[in-house]
């Protein structure tokens, strides 16, 4: 066997470059971080009511808008002061009061459908951002209380005003095991 030639060395270098390049290219496509980490962190602080009171279609779009610097942090009434403070802390901004233009903070509530009056029109089903309403055309609809975020988005589409928002049933958090 002859000695290594310049050509061999070049071929080896080119082969390595191609292989590593392909691997990196694949990794960049396949192992890409899911999304902007700042958006993730903002989204984690939002209450996930998905109510759209901030005039974005949901909490995640609002988080994206904040990250882009388009929206201020004072637009989330369901999160209230606690969320505002947390956002201010994360983004290094001065906390300030909520902008009342975007609504006022209310205690947690859940939607309830008056089954006597519901006509089964199914208009509220697509309106619910978390698919918490079960029903089908001309069948009784009902709200899964556990999943309802109390966003009020099911109210406008209802033609017979049979949805009301009420305080959730008292479910005390499960007690620690270590009671004395």
């Amino acid at each position, binding site marked *: 066997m002859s000695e290594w030639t310049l050509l061999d060395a070049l071929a080896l270098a080119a082969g390595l470059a191609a292989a590593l390049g392909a691997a990196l290219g694949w990794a960049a496509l396949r192992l890409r971080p899911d999304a902007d980490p700042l958006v993730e962190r903002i*989204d984690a602080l*939002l*209450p*996930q*009511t*998905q109510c759209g009171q901030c005039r974005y279609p*949901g*909490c*995640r779009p609002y988080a994206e808008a904040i990250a882009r610097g388009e929206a201020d942090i004072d637009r989330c009434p369901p999160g209230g002061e606690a969320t505002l403070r947390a956002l201010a802390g994360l983004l290094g901004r001065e906390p300030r009061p909520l902008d009342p233009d975007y609504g006022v903070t209310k205690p947690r509530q859940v939607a309830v459908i008056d089954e006597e009056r519901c006509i089964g029109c199914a208009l509220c089903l*697509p309106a*619910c*951002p*978390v*698919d*918490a309403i079960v029903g089908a055309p001309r069948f009784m609809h009902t709200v899964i209380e556990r*999943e309802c*975020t109390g966003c009020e988005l099911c109210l406008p589409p209802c033609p017979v005003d049979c949805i009301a928002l009420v305080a959730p049933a*008292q*479910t*005390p*958090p*499960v*007690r*620690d*095991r*270590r*009671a*004395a």
Partner: protein
Amino acid sequence: MARPRRFPAGLELPPFKSGPMGRPILAAAAPSLATLALDQGNGIAAQPVVVVGDRVRVGSLVARSEGDFGVDVHATVAGTVRSLEVRPVPGAAATSPCLVIENDWTDDREDASTPLDWQATTPADLLARIRSAGIAGLGGAAFATHAKLEAARDAKVSHLVLNGAECEPWICCDDALMRERAADVVLGARVMQRVVDAERVTIAIEDDKPEAITAVEAALAATDHHGLALAVVPAVFPAGAERQLLASVTGIEVPGDAWPPAVGLLCQNVGTAAAVARVVTSGEPLTRRIVTVTGSAIAAPANVEARLGTPIADLIEACGGYRGEPLRLIAGGSMTGRALPSDDAPVTQALNCVVVATAADLAVHGSEMPCIRCGDCASVCPAGLLPQSLLRAVASADAQGLVRLGLADCIECGCCDYVCPSRIPLTARFVAARRERRLRLDQERRAARARERYAGHERRLAAGAEAERREFEEARRRARGDGQS
């Protein structure tokens, strides 16, 4: 006799137990209306299996437990189910769904099985019987006994400790039980020992209860079974708190984030043991418990054995009624008890004591003053925490600080309040902070779920729109094709 050591800190408190202990256990009359709480205080209400108007007998199952930590509820009087409603109950939850049963005074019972040969019964069968008897820990926490036993069985615990310490001032129902029914306590201990296959059983009693110690010693002598022992622990509050008692008796400290079965231990109250004994001797579900009715505003304090669901007012009646100026009703003892809004709340499994206090009993000293950092609270804390640092973390809503300082390990015993020269209600602040933390964690869980469901909703809508678009394109293409042909 094992030689226990004293756990760190705690308080030596005046007992206030001589009143009821001067008399035997009274049997309260059956109530005309029994109000049966379906939630034993952990937020898991049993589901009723009867409807209003049904006739039930004493011991009939009226509500079936939900989940692993739920407890079955049985009728404690014979009669008719009158209503299912939310009523005030003693304890932290304040209210619970309750079944109200009107007594028809026939007192007929579910057919009781003959005494069980428990030594020939498999542990699994015994456990199932304990489960269906609806027993929750009678020491005051009302944790489902079968769940505790099952966890202990799975963890193969080696040491069962029966808690007869009863360290809290005023409460003496366990003392009375051990004096009068020590044999039941020992039998229950042996049954539970068989269920969990524990090598050793220790019955722990505080050294200020010599009569109970003598009675339990005699009962132990009457059984030839080895592995049962008595441990006398110093009378220091809170010697009877689960972790503190286990540390005194076994020398093993249960880590803050684990529970006793994880370190091979199991702790059960002596009252619970007696209830288990009744399951094997008479096949009876839990329908009654002993409650200490005491306080300076009670005419004749006593330990009263009452059916669950009996209004507290009936118990007070049985003890000669009120005298003097009752100022406050307390469910539980003076350290960890909670104020009761009225005496029509019913007896529940968790209710070990009712204190009807006068102004003198309450010893109110005046209003709260600023913390002077004297450190007295840290020197009495039986959990080894720094209450004054915790207080600062609570005041500044420092969630991470609270976790770091061990808020989760607080047993809410009230020792820090008792010694605080500035009269700061520390325990109440810690309880509120823990509640807030639970609510926040709950909110976070709900938010995570909503986030997921919102993403799903968006995907679904997008897929729907995409399908519609494709269908439209398809239709258009077909229409064009038709036009050409």
